[in-house]
């Protein structure tokens, strides 16, 4: 198993460097732009004047040590931070040129999906988990076709097609996470946010999800938070390095990892702290 998943990984790295080498950040269309974002929990400031953008149909990684605010930044992108009452966001986040803070939050979250650190399937069958988003959003069309399509996109179909009506909890952790990705993909989000999606998974499951992410970027725009720098290097086209709530560096991934422009980035990626 270990050996067979390795070639896949090395291919990923190769395609990545190729893709990111094609264009610099400024020349790409942006799906989301984050301008002058300051974020607070109560009186504690978590993010300081963040400016960055999420390129269309690319993978953008947010890296940094624990507590640097990378998850907070990600959660603000579909306003999941609002579930915490003391949170406060200043600045502007735009999706396709429109301020997300002025939009209906349920519509926004349908357009900007999220996958969490810990696989969180609902206590329902595999089928019902994927169909959930379609049903609550009243999406028309054949539910079973869309469920199959989403499961195929999440590379889970072959493993579950014979027991779609079994409990989602019968799946392994890695399968559960791919189910959550399928569930998010079912409503065809324009942007998919992933908050350390592999941190609770074993290396083989992690490799599968990384492979999946690289394929998914043809379909949707991806932003991923990871504490694993190798993962960011493997899957992403652009990387943002955050430190104590500040955006230190935001560059194409190969550039950030080979010739970082800030000494703090270099110190972090070479393992001097974090």
């Amino acid at each position, binding site marked *: 198993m270990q050996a067979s998943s390795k070639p896949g990984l090395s291919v990923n790295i190769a395609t990545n460097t190729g893709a990111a080498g094609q264009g610099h950040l400024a020349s790409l269309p942006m799906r989301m732009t984050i301008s002058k974002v300051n974020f607070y929990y109560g009186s504690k400031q978590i993010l300081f004047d963040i400016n960055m953008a999420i390129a269309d149909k690319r993978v953008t990684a947010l890296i940094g040590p624990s507590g640097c605010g990378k998850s907070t930044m990600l959660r603000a992108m579909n306003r*999941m931070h609002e*579930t915490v009452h003391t949170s406060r966001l200043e600045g502007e986040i735009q999706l396709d040129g429109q301020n997300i803070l002025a939009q209906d939050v*349920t519509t926004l979250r349908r357009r900007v999906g999220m996958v969490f650190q*810990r696989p*969180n399937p*609902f*206590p329902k069958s595999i089928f019902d988990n994927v169909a959930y988003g379609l049903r609550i959003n009243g999406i028309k069309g054949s539910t079973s076709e869309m469920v199959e399509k989403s499961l195929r996109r999440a590379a889970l179909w072959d493993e579950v097609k014979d027991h779609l009506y079994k409990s989602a*909890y019968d799946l392994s952790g890695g399968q559960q996470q791919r189910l959550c990705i399928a569930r*998010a993909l079912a*409503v065809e989000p324009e942007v998919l946010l992933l908050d350390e999606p592999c941190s609770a998974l074993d290396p083989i499951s992690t490799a599968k999800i990384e492979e999946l992410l690289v394929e998914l970027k043809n379909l949707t725009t991806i932003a991923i938070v990871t504490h694993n720098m190798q993962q960011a290097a493997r899957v992403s086209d652009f990387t943002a390095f955050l430190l104590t709530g500040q955006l230190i560096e935001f560059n194409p991934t190969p550039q950030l990892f080979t010739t970082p422009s800030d000494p703090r980035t270099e110190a972090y990626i070479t393992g001097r702290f974090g």
Partner: protein
Amino acid sequence: MSASVKWRRLVSNFMLTLTGVCAVVSVSVLFFILGYLVYNGGTSINWAFFTQLPTPVGETGGGMANAIVGSAKLLMAASLLGVPIGFLGGIYLAEFSGSAVASVVRYAADLLNGVPSIVMGIFAYSIVVLPFKHFSTLAGAFALGLMMIPITLRSTEEFLGGVPRYLREGAMALGASKWKTIATVVVPAAYRGILTAILLALARVAGETAPLLFTAFGNRYWSEGWGQPTASLPVMIFTYAVSPYDDWHRQAWAAGLVLLGLILIINILARTILSRGIAVPRS
């Protein structure tokens, strides 16, 4: 071995024996009551008990068909009052209210739960019986329903509160509104616990006598509709047990067994329902 170690061993063995004996005593009390009830009730129960009305005083035989139906009607109407109020109130408490409101309501519910059942009876008497100038099934169900509210409310709140945050976030991240998240994910994830608690509340009020004494009162005949006084198993047990007739004592035992049987059936039903569906795994 030093003296202090010997002493500690002695104390340890003594306490171990003491706790063991206490555990055995508490369990054996339960089994003694059950055994005594099954023995006395089992020898007194017959088909007529389920199918016939009570006989006039002095005649032997007859049954408590009207009391069995009466109890069923009381419990049904009580659930219709107590379960929706308690359940919806529990949802509000767990999901919408601030912590200040929640703690006040929670405290009030605990107080309500602690109100002696006879006081519930007096309350129902003055609110329902006096204005209508009638003992009735509805008045009895009102008293029992009030008693179900705090149990249902508190358990709903507790089980909803126990639904992990990550499930709610999963639903909200797919574009579910708060209300939809509660209805389609949170409540389904908690329904087993809530249902169990409701059935336990039902089993508890099924055996209540005091609130029925001056609300549902009693009836030696069939009670038609909801506005008439009605017989119920606990009140029949009370009336028959304090009577001077041996045959009535026999029937009181039988009624006790039937009541126990009903509660057992409710419990088994609950377990059957709970064994279906998908539970959130404990982590």
